[in-house]
């Protein structure tokens, strides 16, 4: 299997990482060698195997419906790259 430049561009769009042609070429090379290595999995017959998503053999614990956090706007916004004290700010989005 080969991952072509078009695929790389598509994945980079999905990942929101800009990729120029040179970077795309390098990435395609790296990814192809990594996927060559990954392809080894195809040897295995896994038809009757249940996929394992978590090794934690426990059930999901449920939290009591209580308000315990609030009014920490200053803390929440302090690390934001913009100075606005009430909102997060991003370049204007046109719908």
């Amino acid at each position: 299997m080969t991952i072509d430049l078009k695929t790389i561009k598509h994945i980079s769009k999905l990942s929101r990482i800009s990729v120029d042609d040179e970077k795309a070429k390098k990435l395609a090379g790296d990814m192809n060698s990594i996927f060559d290595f990954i392809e080894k999995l195809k040897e295995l017959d896994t038809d009757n195997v249940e996929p394992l998503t978590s090794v934690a053999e426990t059930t999901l614990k449920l939290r009591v419906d209580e308000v315990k956090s609030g009014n920490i706007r200053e803390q929440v916004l302090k690390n934001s790259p913009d100075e606005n004290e009430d909102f997060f700010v991003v370049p204007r989005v046109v719908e």
Partner: protein
Amino acid sequence: MTKDSSEYLIERYNNVYEVVIGLEVHAQVTSNSKLFSSSSTTFGAEPNTQVSLVDAAFPGMLPVINEYCVKQAIKTGIGLKAQINKRSVFDRKNYFYADLPQGYQISQFKFPIVGEGTVILDMENGPKEVGIERLHLEQDAGKSIHDMDPQNTLVDLNRSGVALMEIVSKPDMRTPDEVSAYVKKLRSIMRYLGTCDGNMQEGSLRADVNISVRIKGSDALGTRCEIKNVNSIKFMQMAIDYEANRQVDLIEEGKTIDQETRLFDTKKNETRSMRSKEDAHDYRYFPDPDLLPLEVTDEFIEKLKLDIPELPDEKKKRFIDKFKVSPYEATILVSDIDTAKYFEEVVAKMGKNLDIKLAVNWITGELFAVLNNKNLEISESPISAKNLAKLINLIKNGTISGKIAKTIFELMMDGDKDPQIIVEEKGLKQESDPKALETLIDKIINDNREKAIEYKQGKEKLFGFFVGQAMKASSGKANPQLINEILKKKL
């Protein structure tokens, strides 16, 4: 082809099209705190004051699920007569957006908490069943504000992480009226259950509308378009009307319909394609590794079933059986839980004088008119059920006439006044003493001798004149039934 009035069909030349509609309703779960964090869900707070470090997706912050939201979803599932799945899984739906701080929404994709169910719509021409495909829990996103700053979009994360139930219907609806009835019924069921307040102005209930058209009689489904995030029933109906006609026009012109996401512009009353979401459709769902599968026991579900109140369909049946109200009246009385509560309280307070017809008439007549006028919910009614019951009882036991009752009703609105007190204060008690009325009538006959003779000679219409005179002389307080009897005797 015949066409009955309940159908919604679009005709072009010789083709008759029907519309196929399915809804994805997003209902905000009524809870104190968010689905995976402990911040408040209260509506209308200052921007970004109800945001925890989890909601703002700080590094290393983890989701912990709210038990109450799980219960609310299961209760809603029970209300929709749906399959409750004892094991469900939370997945991540990955996409980037300014108001989605994690870069993914935690939702349920493959294994929702609730499976198939049904909702019965009370349509004019009989009940109509709409299938429920599934109900799943997911996080709401924050809010992007585009009109406060000319250069930037501002983001308020107060809503970020609030629990939503996404209720997906089967494509079973065919008319805008059915859509309206469906949304109202869902809202009604959830309000009965207390699982969603159904407040559409505050965005607690909104829907994505899936629409396709096809030649009537055909079984195949046409290409559908999804109209995103419509937040009022009126707009849903307008959007369907516009979109269905747009699709029919395309077909008639020999063009193809693109399966796409569209937006309803409420100002222009049209739908339009949302800025082509080139890659937005690859959400790369996968099970959220920060959460384990959600497992609930039979016992847990059974316990919740004990909490389920009488729902609108059952209540309607009981009202018809027990109170002998018409199906139409029953539908009105049960449609909103607060109306049903009000009605039942009036009935209870009326006691031995119970007159269902009178109670229904007063509630759906006078009271509804006032509420409509003042734009109030029945829960905010200026007249309590207790006092309305008293008023009806005063009519019923002959203390006041129906006409006077209307005057008293007006007066009651000022601070939910007790009608008994109003009657006493204003001396509005009905005159039912036969002797007093006889004296009064004797005088009237005396004063109008000529008319009395004309009546006796056969001019029966004049009877009304004498009743009017008697009422006038008693300032409306005379018992009309007695007046009738005495007049007949004396004349």
